[in-house]
């Protein structure tokens, strides 16, 4: 008798602990017999979860993948039974972590980064944009108002120009500049290094403005609205300046080549900010936090696209503007981009619901 016990003890040193944790004939407690019956499922779930967590999804058999939700539910129910019937604290703690880990997998993100990106371009982005419909109208109205305000203010008193346009822009483009100087800022810049223009543009004022528009949305959207107005007032002031020398159309052409993309991006960013702000100010039946989270997720989708649009705008500014040097062709490129974006967002409706 003693020798067999000894043999079992020594045998126990060499087998892995969990497998022989409860030897059948030894389980005196009812809770231990319960553990014995379920233990196989738990260790199998543990193995599957461990393999999935280490990223070796491919090596997982279909059988195991199908078994995961079932095993997860087994573990969850084992946990609630163990809590009611067993006082083995280590066992309950183990089941808690195991259930938690499996829960993360069963209720985890369904898409990898790549498959998400494909779905994103293939309909979810435009659906999210359409979901902001009302906010886009508000942002558009604010931007138009901003341009008008800028123009009118400067027209009434040119001093406003210096207040609206920061020194970074107003190098030689100031009220009273000659037509030649202004014309020179628009044409004949082919020698510029495309790469440095691009790099400067990527981290430019506009990229910052669009991200700020989104980020400040959680202050009920008010800073977003102010930012939109302030920045388009700048645009209005410059429009007025070039109009004064009869270069309005040329300026618009110069701007449109990347501006249609960029202003569109700012518009969407502003709309996202307003969307979040509106959700927080008028959460309806949901709590403020939940409303902000729901709006935040949709707005974040739009913002991911905005970042892509800003990259496109930077490439256009860095290269296309240097290569295309006449107003009609510039307007064509800009107009084409505008039509392309609008069409993509509002006419392209394959799959995806917002």
């Amino acid at each position, binding site marked *: 008798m003693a020798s067999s*016990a000894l043999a079992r003890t020594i045998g126990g040193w060499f087998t892995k*602990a*969990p497998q022989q*944790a*409860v030897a059948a004939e*030894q*389980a*005196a*407690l*009812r*809770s*231990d017999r319960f*553990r014995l019956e379920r233990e196989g499922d*738990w260790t199998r779930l543990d193995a599957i979860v461990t393999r999935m*967590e280490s*990223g070796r*999804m491919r090596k997982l058999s279909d059988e195991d993948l199908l078994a995961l939700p079932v095993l997860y*539910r087994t573990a*969850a*129910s084992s*946990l*609630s039974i163990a809590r009611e*019937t*067993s*006082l*083995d604290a*280590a066992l309950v*703690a*183990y089941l808690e*972590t*195991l*259930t*938690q*880990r499996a829960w*993360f997998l069963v*209720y*985890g*993100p369904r898409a990898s*980064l790549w498959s*998400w990106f494909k779905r994103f371009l293939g309909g979810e982005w435009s659906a999210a944009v359409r979901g902001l419909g009302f906010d886009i109208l508000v942002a558009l109205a604010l931007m138009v108002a901003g341009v008008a305000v800028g123009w009118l203010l400067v027209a009434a008193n040119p001093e406003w120009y210096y207040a609206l346009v920061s020194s970074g822009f107003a190098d030689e483009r100031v009220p009273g500049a000659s037509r030649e100087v202004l014309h020179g800022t628009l044409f004949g810049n082919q020698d510029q290094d*495309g*790469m440095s223009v*691009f*790099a400067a543009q*990527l*981290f430019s004022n506009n990229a*910052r403005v669009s*991200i*700020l528009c989104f*980020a400040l949305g*959680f202050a009920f959207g008010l800073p977003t609205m102010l930012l939109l107005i302030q920045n388009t007032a700048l645009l209005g002031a410059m429009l007025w300046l070039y109009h004064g020398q009869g270069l309005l159309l040329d300026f618009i052409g110069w701007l449109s080549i990347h501006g249609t993309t960029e202003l569109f991006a700012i518009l969407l960013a502003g709309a996202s900010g307003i969307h979040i702000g509106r959700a927080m100010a008028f959460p309806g039946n949901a709590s403020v936090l*939940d409303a*902000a*989270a*729901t709006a*935040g*997720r949709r707005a*974040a989708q739009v*913002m991911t696209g905005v970042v892509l649009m800003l990259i496109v705008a930077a490439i256009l500014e860095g*290269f296309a503007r240097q290569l295309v040097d006449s107003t009609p062709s510039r307007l064509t490129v800009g107009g084409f981009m505008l039509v392309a974006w609008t069409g993509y967002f509002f006419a392209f409706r394959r799959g995806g619901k917002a």
Partner: protein
Amino acid sequence: MAIALPFRKGRAPRTPLDHEDRRRRMVITPEGVPLPFLLASRGARAAALFLDLAMIVGAMIGMTLILMKVAEGVGLDVEGKNPAAHAMQALGVLWIVALFLFRNAWFLFFELGARGATPGKRITGIRVAARASGSSGARLTTEAVIARNLVRDIELFMPLVFFFSAWAEGSDTDLAGWAGLAWFLIFAFFPFFNRDRLRCGDLIAGTWVVEAPKRKLEQALSTGTAARGTSAETGAQYRFSDADLAVYGEMELQVLERVLRDSREEAMRDVAQTICRKIGWSAGSGDERAFLEAYYAQLRARLETGMRFGRRKANKHSS
């Protein structure tokens, strides 16, 4: 009648042993099983962020250096106006875009994976999870992960860039620099001012960061020979009467379990002596483990039987 403060509603009374109580949140899974989640400590989150940043910057610098070496080796030149230089500039642009996307993709790729954690988070043992709405758990969505990482740019990187560029430019942009710093500090300390330690990105995305523990299934303590009352070493029989077992409750049982699992000699001797004093036994020294295992198994059997009949004894003070 005591006034219940609304924001303390539903919190379990704290036992003196429980250091983690402030960080614990109960979430009910869709199956209706309550699961405890432990919010990550702020230190662990900061450490994870720094680790990730170090890895990202390291990878970027390393890759750029390698590419520059390769370009040099092939004999390409970025300067000049010839078509080759233009092609190089275009490649340079692509590289800038790649680096820009890399930093964001790093967080997204790893947090969307099965671990829900970047390498930095993995090292510090934490992960991202969907915040419970009400008390029921929700699915962590791709959009939520994207949202929380987009906002990180605005919270941390942008104001810092703002601050440093203003600082480098000189004195006339002092105010902007300080505004950037204040902005950064507000968001950096945001997790200190809410109960769930949410960063702004967590707030927007509906996520929180929790600890991701792993545990092995431990050996059952109640199945050895000693647990049946027979000491393997001395052959002594330990049988406790109902009165001997009635003095302790569930809390003491768990302390005893911990002592047995830690398996430290002096702790076991102390506990064995305490129990002997309490129930009026005198067990010889040298056989504490067998004694304690026997007491543990029999106490657990008694308490579990009580549980099945709806009688629970929380600790030695309760009847």
